[in-house]
């Protein structure tokens, strides 16, 4: 059974179904979307059950697609892509539920969300560069519509900025892909074969720079991050969840899947620069987050800071650093997903995201307040919750790396303190204290909302206590990857 094909393209069935639904039954689209998303998640469950932890790349599907150009339909999954694929499938289900009350053009909305799922799932399992690029770009379109149609007051500006900025980045990625293809020692779109190409170092240097621009915008790393706060603030809640949860990880995934294994020498040469921008992102993102008055913007800038830790771990190129990087990718998706969901739930009730106006939640809505405090502590890296293992390992891995000066690691560690500062200050104003006027009469979370959050809470605790629940998949893949890099 072509399981990966099913996982990737099943949502497309939902997209098609949306077009056929009767227009006078507005409650149907969400049910169809939920059914498809759940079925997709179930398929990922089947995949997980059949996955052999030490078995390298699995569930491979390889067919010739455009033989003239050597383009293949090549899917597979390994320990780095599996967690991200699973996260994607889970977050789509939760995003559908979080959009339960969308009233404007629901069929179109859920069609876009399912189309987004196709792209997100596809990126993480594609091992042919053309296919990878198609999925990569496919993601832009539905997200553009989600922000542009169902977004906030400045949605059009934000949507176009998101689209063009990331497109700007992916053009450089395309240049990189074509350069690899046209180089005599490359000559293929096969992403596995390219890791064994042994390209000359000076060629790698340029190609790395091209891919870097493509990925850096997507992550985003300072100074390419300014599309992110706009996109997040304007996007509907579900859009923000998927944007932060999955789309940002496509950038860091690109570094792990492409830059490191295909361009190992360049990755070593560029490591200091990647680490530097990573550390700047950590400190800068944290400081700017501290200055925010809008709750959603605060979470958006915190993402810039967290992604900096991922970059630091990737630049390190050590087992600890890479395990940490993947761990943060996953954990950030879960934790920031929770934060955006909560901000959305609060906004739906109060119609404001201004920190000064939303205060004293715990008095009026203890469940929402407790969840928000929980997510905040997870976000600031409290041990025992999911945010800690990744940040800690990326610090340890960076210190261990010969490519990164200790000063970077010390600066990054100070970032952990700054994270506590902006998060706790937010908690102090929003969660604690006496209730403000906007909060005074709002109801607490309903059962659906609690149901959306509970899986994320469970994962946050489970992964935080038992790191292996995630890392048992990641570590063997990282070992393979590093062995491949060192082999040449």
């Amino acid at each position, binding site marked *: 059974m072509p399981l990966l094909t099913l996982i990737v393209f099943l949502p497309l069935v939902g997209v098609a179904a949306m077009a056929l639904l009767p227009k006078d039954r507005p409650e149907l689209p969400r049910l169809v979307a939920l059914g498809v998303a759940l079925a997709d998640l179930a398929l990922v469950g089947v995949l997980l059950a059949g996955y052999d932890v030490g078995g390298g790349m699995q569930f491979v599907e390889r067919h010739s697609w455009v033989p003239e150009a050597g383009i293949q339909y090549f899917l597979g999954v390994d320990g780095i892509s599996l967690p991200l694929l699973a996260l994607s499938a889970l977050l789509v289900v939760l995003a559908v539920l979080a959009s339960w009350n969308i009233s404007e053009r629901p069929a179109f909305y859920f069609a876009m969300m399912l189309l987004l799922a196709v792209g997100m799932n596809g990126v993480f399992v594609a091992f042919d560069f053309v296919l990878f690029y198609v999925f990569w770009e496919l993601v832009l379109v539905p997200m553009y519509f989600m922000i542009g149609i169902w977004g906030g007051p400045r949605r059009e500006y934000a949507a*176009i900025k998101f689209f063009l900025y990331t497109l700007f980045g992916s053009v450089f990625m395309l240049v990189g892909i*074509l350069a690899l293809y046209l180089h005599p020692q490359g000559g293929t779109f096969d992403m596995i074969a390219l890791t064994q190409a042994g390209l000359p170092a000076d060629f790698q240097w340029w190609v790395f720079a091209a891919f870097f621009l493509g990925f850096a915008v997507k992550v985003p790393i300072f100074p390419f991050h300014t599309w992110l706060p706009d996109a997040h603030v304007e996007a509907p809640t579900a859009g923000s969840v998927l944007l932060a949860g999955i789309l940002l990880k496509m950038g860091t995934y690109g570094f792990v899947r492409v830059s490191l294994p295909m361009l190992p020498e360049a990755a070593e040469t560029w490591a200091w620069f990647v680490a530097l921008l990573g550390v700047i992102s950590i400190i800068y993102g944290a400081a700017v987050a501290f200055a925010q008055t809008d709750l959603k913007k605060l979470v958006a800038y915190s993402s810039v800071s967290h992604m900096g830790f991922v970059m630091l771990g990737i630049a390190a190129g050590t087992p600890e650093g890479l395990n940490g990087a993947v761990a943060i990718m996953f954990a950030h998706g879960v934790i920031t997903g929770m934060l955006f969901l909560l901000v959305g739930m609060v906004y739906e009730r109060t119609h404001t995201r201004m920190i000064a106006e939303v205060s004293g939640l715990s008095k009026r809505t203890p469940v929402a307040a407790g969840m928000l405090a929980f997510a905040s502590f997870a976000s600031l890296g409290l041990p025992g919750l999911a945010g800690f293992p990744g940040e800690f390992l990326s610090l340890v891995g960076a210190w261990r790396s010969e490519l990164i000066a200790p000063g970077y690691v010390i600066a990054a560690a100070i970032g952990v303190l700054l994270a506590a500062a902006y998060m706790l200050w937010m908690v102090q104003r929003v969660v604690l204290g006496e209730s403000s006027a906007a909060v005074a009469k709002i109801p607490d979370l309903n059962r659906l909302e609690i149901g959306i959050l509970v899986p994320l809470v469970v994962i946050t605790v489970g992964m935080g206590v*038992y790191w292996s629940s995630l890392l048992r998949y990641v570590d063997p893949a990282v070992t393979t990857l590093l062995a491949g890099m060192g082999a040449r």
Partner: protein
Amino acid sequence: MAYVALIPLLPAIAFAVLTPLSREMRNRVRWLGLVSVGGALALSLAAFAAVWPGGQEGEATYRASVPIAQVGGVDLNLGILLDPIAAIMLLVITVVGMCVQVYSLGYMHRDERVGWYFAVLSLFTAAMLALVLADNFLMLYMAWEVMGLCSYLLIGFWHEQEAPRKASQKAFLTTRVGDVGFAIGLALMYATVGSFEYDAVFAGVGQWAPGVATAVALLLLIGAMGKSAQVPLHVWLPDAMAGPTPASALIHAATMVAAGVYLVARALPIFEASGVALTITMIVGVTTALVGGVIAAVQHDIKKVLAYSTISQLGYMFVAIGAGGAIAGMFHLVTHAFFKSLLFLGAGVIIHAAHTQDMREMGGLSKHLPWTTVTFGAGALALAGVAPFSGFWSKDEILYALYTGEHYVVLVLAAAAAFVTAFYVARLWFRVFTGPAQTEHLKEGHAEMIVPMVLLAVITAAIGFTAPGFSKFLGHAGHWPDPLIAGGSTAVALAGLALGWWAYGRRSVVLNTRSLKERAGYAYDALAKKLYFDLTYEYFIIRPYMWTAEHLYRFDQKVVDGAVNGAASAWNGLTAASARFDLAVIDGVVNGLAGSARAAGRTLRKIQVGRVQTYQRYILGAVVLLMVWIVVKGA
């Protein structure tokens, strides 16, 4: 002996059960915390019996570990190491924890969130128990941070008021300053050894590159200074008194704040390999002992006096370890845990009775609160260092360690700190318990509050006599007090008490305070302002950071994002020119890439149509770029 794992697990389970319940349900089953800590106490007694008689044979009575992750082929574990020092700590935590749980039933019974209070208290107990049982630094660090969370939650328990809210945040952030050092130390340790396990780390510590041991030790010390409120990271502890008093007794007097001392004692081989780090530990300790002592002597809030006293006494423990008397430091940790939690519990009764924390509004309580007076008296004498109460014995051992280590300057300074300690104890005592009562209807505490205090008082009176046995249990030669040191320290304590009586016991309080202010106004002012630590941080760290954050955000909007928007409109100008050519070809649809960016107000429809062509242009442009590059490259 797998039951050892249950010691931290029982209270953790209590927390896990209590937390998801509704508030009403949680309040109803709050006794779960008590039961779990009681179970942990029983198991700790069994564990202690298993380790007995300790000594060298007691090394690692029980070990067990489970991996929580494998990274690069290395197992990272949650592991248990039961040895004499852990066995003692287990007893201290569970006994004080039990006393505080029982006491809290009375103290907190009218609070509407009492169930949550007990849940957090249980989680704290679990974390502290896990910390002392850990067999590696990673697990210790994790438990350490979870305790920090519990401390935050309990300090800010009454968060509707501003002071607890601010204090909780200050506590978390200040201790996290220390934790940054701790975390970097762990990274350096792992990079050096490839493991966090105590055994693996200590085994190779002699072969580390020069300076590495010192660096690791000092980084761990920074962590310890945050948690144990050592100067200059002590500022959070006095503010932490905004939390419920029994929580202060457990967390901010007996156990959590002592975790830094425990960390240094556990990591002693690293400190010993460094040597310099020990000296620095001693200097930090003696500075803190003096600073905490003198500030305590001018506080009016009874809990703040006790808080600064705790800071000072923790400094004493660091002095001991730094001087090579780790056993003495640990013994002081144990005696202090009992007598200081006793003093806090007593303070709780006093505050309930007097309806104030200001000692100037108290007086004459001894007539109305007999149980509290007697038990508090035992704790006060122990703190002052008067035989036979426990503090005398442990303080004596510390001074003896300084004496035999020939640290004479530090010995004199430590004696001075002991003098100040006795002075503020007397000041507190005479202000609170003697003289005329200033409040009517003074009531003694409930039975569930008094019973734990009596138990702690008995321990405080008796435990000092175990001093030689304590050393032997930990594998060192034990001894009885040295006459010279014991005589000297008793003289110092009595002198301090006498001065306190002279100044405050004769009921000429107001006069004396005024004359002190007049004669040494500048010094008094400096002490009353807590030696300017808080103001320094406010003006040199917090406000500059807030200013920087604000301006970075403006920079982000104006410069970083401005560059993006500027590039877009520049591109727009360019494409507008070329669009005139395109008009004929592509039918006037294309407005160019950034033409769309500028046109935020345009309808979506238009943009959608324009997009495909823009996209094509991009790809075309890229291919052209690439071709140019390949040609240049090939040439």
